[in-house]
């Protein structure tokens, strides 16, 4: 009986979680008539594919998707390298000003993005990079969250691992590359997911930094559908579904990496 109740509760929770997805997917496969039909039509049969056709062949959606993937991947790749290197330096190396840099980074974490928006735009404008890919790629690289995360991950690694490598003549970069990076792989994966999804969903900065149509990213482009195409819930739902695809693929592809070999066995227990 207890098992049945547990399962019922779980099923209910699953339904609540899945309902919005079902609703969006169902709406994306309805024409205008079915969308506003009363009593409501749960699933239109046969499904209406017009929304997807219009989105893919009669809007800038493919371009927005490419732009988004390009920007999000580039930022993710660059940030993983920069953050892990900076995290290693802050965690394991001794240099003048280390504490000051770390405190500055923590301080920056506390500043809301809205407060940075105008100065950031001003800097980008003065650098003449607004309305370029650089405007979308460079500013997110300065987000200190990744450095902080990597520092904490690397700080947890025992010093003897580096010392053992140092005795064998491994260079500082070699220690970072051969010893530290493989050991913080789960941390890198977490960071990659955070950065990629953050970039994928980033709206305000791309909206401010770019005005050219060929530079629009998904979030800005999809929001623009309302302005250009009038009220079309089916089209918007199709855009929402299509926007979810890459991020879902990315997430599931990396999920296996969360289970990467842990620190077990490195040290005596």
């Amino acid at each position, binding site marked *: 009986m207890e098992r049945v109740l547990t399962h019922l509760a779980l099923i209910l929770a699953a339904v609540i979680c899945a309902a919005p997805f079902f609703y969006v997917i169902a709406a994306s496969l309805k024409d205008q008539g079915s969308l506003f039909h009363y009593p409501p039509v749960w699933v239109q049969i046969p499904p209406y594919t017009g929304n997807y056709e219009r989105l893919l062949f009669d809007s800038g959606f493919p371009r927005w998707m490419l732009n988004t993937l390009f920007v999000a991947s580039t930022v993710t790749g660059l940030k993983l390298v920069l953050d892990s290197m900076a995290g290693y330096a802050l965690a394991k190396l001794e240099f003048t000003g280390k504490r000051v840099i770390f405190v500055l980074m923590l301080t920056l974490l506390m500043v809301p993005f809205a407060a940075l928006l105008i100065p950031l735009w001003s800097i980008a404008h003065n650098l003449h990079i607004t309305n370029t890919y650089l405007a979308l790629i460079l500013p997110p690289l300065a987000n200190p969250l990744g450095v902080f995360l990597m520092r904490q991950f690397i700080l947890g690694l025992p010093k003897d691992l580096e010392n053992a490598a140092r005795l064998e*003549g491994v260079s500082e970069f070699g220690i970072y590359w051969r010893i530290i990076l493989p050991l913080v792989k789960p941390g890198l994966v977490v960071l990659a997911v955070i950065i990629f999804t953050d970039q994928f969903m980033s709206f305000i900065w791309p909206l401010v930094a770019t005005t050219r149509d060929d530079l629009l990213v998904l979030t800005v482009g999809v929001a623009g559908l309302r302005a250009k195409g009038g009220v079309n819930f089916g089209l918007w739902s199709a855009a929402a579904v299509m926007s979810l695809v890459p991020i879902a693929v990315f997430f599931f592809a990396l999920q296996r990496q969360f289970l990467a070999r842990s620190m*077990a066995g*490195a040290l005596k227990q």
Partner: protein
Amino acid sequence: MSVSLPHPDGAVDAFAIELLGVTKRYGDFVALQGIDLDIAPGEFVVLLGPSGCGKSTLLKIIAGLEDASEGEVYINGQLANYLRPKERDVAMVFQNYALYPHMTVETNIGFPLAMRRHTKAAVAERVREVAALVGLTDHLRKYPDQLSGGQRQRVALGRAIIREPVAFLMDEPLSNLDALLRVQMRSELLKLHKRVGRTTIYVTHDQIEAMTMADRIVVLRDGVMQQVGTPREVYSRPANTFTAIFVGSPPMNLIPGRLLTADGGQRFQGPISVDLAALGPMAGVGEEITLGVRPENVELSGSGDAATIPGRVELIESVGADTYLSIAVAEGTTVMVRVSADTSVQEGDCLHLRFPPQRLLLFDPAGNRVTLPGEPA
């Protein structure tokens, strides 16, 4: 840039490792104070001392992982102070093994050679040889987390011995193994040392490990070297009361008192009185002195005479082959006596203790052992 200078005396290869006045300070805290030590090639030297005495720091200074604040380190006759760890040609076994968890046993053991750009075939062959030496041939494809504590320890050893360095530096490698495995690994380490024949500096706080493994023991306390000697010397002629207590289990009995003249000789007068006439005349009559005697050197006698000290058995601890008796000989003074397990004694029994003069040690007020008449200084 690394600089390697020859020894000022021109001595090359006389010592595998030589330390001259090595001092290490962290701010105002002195971790090591003027350490002078020569270690011959092939010697097994144990650095022994309580936690925080500076023994691991000394090992790291030799390895080049820490810099000495003062003093010189010579490795193979070359000044090593300015050499990077790699250039010192020493291998280290860390307290927590420091195995790379993302590498197999094979890659872990072969890592030092791979980093020195040996060919893959050469590394693989040498890994096989070393794995056979440390008994890991069947585990080469496994990862460290698939191994037992003893096997991990062997991987760490294998990684150290694969490139035949000038010296092995071992930082409490057995400290976290369980008691049985520790005894087993201890003898395996010794066998390995005999086979490989390299200079080894071994850090431990376990005096049993030090006594059983060392050619020489270096006793450290608060960064200061207390004594250097063979296990026998350190045990039977401790330089001071610290070594006397730290080495030996149960520790040496130390009884404070004074040296007095008696009829035709001298005697120790404290909570108990011991005739020292047999030791010959000593300087320092009237001064405070501490009498030391190992538990196994106290003799029990059934009947009392003028030379025996009466006492009451307070506690009996049986440790298998031996039994330790805590015997109260005066108010607040207890003497630990080691007897064989078949000795029939009950708590509360009154016994008579005899302290054989030739087995006694005397320590001055500063705690240093007094050289007895006729004893080489």
